[in-house]
């Protein structure tokens, strides 16, 4: 339901826009966001994001990993209960 993600994204601003657009469209709110330019690593942005929503943060992290200019560094999901599993 809520969780935090750490990502490295491309220097261009469109990467941040793309990232936030996926977070919104996949049903999450941004509770906290920090983006810091990394002067050593190709001027990438290191982004730390706390999100909340009804769906699985784990699945969100996989959507974000699909972005060409985004690398997932870490994901921490506080609790998961969204997608259904029939037994």
């Amino acid at each position, binding site marked *: 339901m809520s969780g935090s993600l750490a990502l490295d994204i491309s220097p261009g601003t469109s990467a941040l826009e793309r990232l936030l657009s996926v977070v919104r469209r996949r049903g999450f709110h941004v509770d906290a966001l920090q983006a810091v330019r990394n002067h050593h690593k*190709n001027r990438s942005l290191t982004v730390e994001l706390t999100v909340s929503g009804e769906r699985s943060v*784990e699945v969100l992290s996989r959507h974000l990993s699909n972005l060409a200019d*985004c690398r997932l560094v870490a994901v921490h999901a506080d609790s998961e209960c969204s997608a259904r599993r029939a037994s």
Partner: protein
Amino acid sequence: MTGAELLLRSLEAEGVEKIWGYPGGAIMPVYDALLDSPIRHYLTRHEQGAAFAAQGYARSTGEVGVCMATSGPGATNLVTGIADAYLDSVPLVAITGQVPRHLIGTDAFQEVDMLGITLPIVKHSYLVTEPESIPQVVRQAFATAREGRPGPVVIDLPKDVAQAEVPGLPEAGLPEKCAPAIGLFGAPSAATPPDPPGADGLADATELLRASQRPVIYAGGGVEKGAAVDALRRFVAGTGIPVVHTLHGLGGIASDHPLFLGMLGMHGTRAANHAVQECDLLVAIGVRFDDRATGKLSEFAPEARVIHLDIDAAELGKLRVPHAAVRGDLRLALDALERSLDIEPWRQQCREWKQRWQWRYDAPFDEVYAPAMLRQLSQQAPSGSFVVCDVGQHQMWVAQHWCFEHPRQHLTSGGLGTMGFGLPAAIGVQIAHPEATVLNVTGDGSILMNVQELATIRRYNLPVKIVVLDNSALGMVRQWQECFFDNRESEVDLSDNPDFAEVARAFGIPALAIDRTQQVAGALDLLLESRGPMLLHVHIDRQANVWPLVPAGANNSQMIETSQASQSKPVTASL
């Protein structure tokens, strides 16, 4: 050389031979350079037509389709085609002109933020700000469009970048290893094979298969996209598991295969929906648990354990958490799965359902019965023919009644469900396969969405065969109004349609109109024998419906076959 010339050299280096597009101010440098390029440009009569023609090429070949438009309205006219490619995972590169760099952000003439507009409907997009980066952008755009789960990529090219003087491509083109990454991480190269499937998932899947008594294969568009049709067929032959297909999966195993139960979901067959609802194991292959297929998700295959195989990790657990998740190359995954199952009683049960609920085509009336006509057409069309649909009842009749050989031969806008897809997509298919029979099955509503492309068919003398199923209505919407809105018809009447045969003739395309069952055989012969393009205008019953139907939000066992309003009439399109 100019940026525009460099763009074309880069496209040539990707093997591009054909482009569909429409010129205008900001893209003029590229159109000028086209005159000296071996790339063949096809002028459509609307940019949406260009996007769908490029899609037709891409869907029918598996190669990347390329479309091109100018900035502003040209670019926005591509947007529907891009969204359609995104939802159906079609490899497409859309090149759009943009205003010169110094004017970006000034609300200049024909400036729109194409990158922003398309952000949620592309795999990736580029605004090219440095002319020198063009070769790398193109290389990565193509790799991204093709690799893994395919999809659309936008390259937005400012006019001054296209006009800038740049050094040319290196003599030897752009070898993979020399292509520096754009952005931070770049994209895998086109040569990168899909990842092998994970061993853990395969082991879990094998256990589930061994334990299952009532398994069903639920296979979708990912099978063809992953070049896994043969692997699926081997798996089915080896295990004898009954198969249901999604709209995009149709043809994965041939329609006449004894283990094929039909399409599942909203307009699926009774046998397919029944088997899925009763199964104890669902082997989901290249599918995304789309609501049109699953009905009410929480009641979909309620007794089933799930094995989900997909190339896209984000699909695994998105809507239904699998008991075994296998991400990676579907071919390797399918070939590695357990084969020896002991499920004869279940197979027998499925065969019985299939037999009990098979389609009937013995319509008692004189009017043309569309399902029967489409079945006949698919049986009569030469092997290797393509059928390209539009959206509506006619699309579902094709899905239900066509005899499919291979998923690549069935083109349909499944995810976005875009009326107007069919005619331009058929153009792309015909250009990609000049010798093949290409049939566009469309509706009286849909054809008018991109009717201008008749001019493209004429210009390039493409022998596309167009079948307009004319029910004088936006039939699918009318059916829903009949079933779920108390038969209150709102803005679905098209009884003032133009004479489509006359319309075709006005574009120089021969045409024929029929309205009686006895005329069908002769008309289909003429259509299939005609060497050039032809339009067959078929008048059908306005009240004909697509059955069965699972109401939106209901579970897939709740199939209806009649509406209150149609109860007095014979329901012939039933199972």
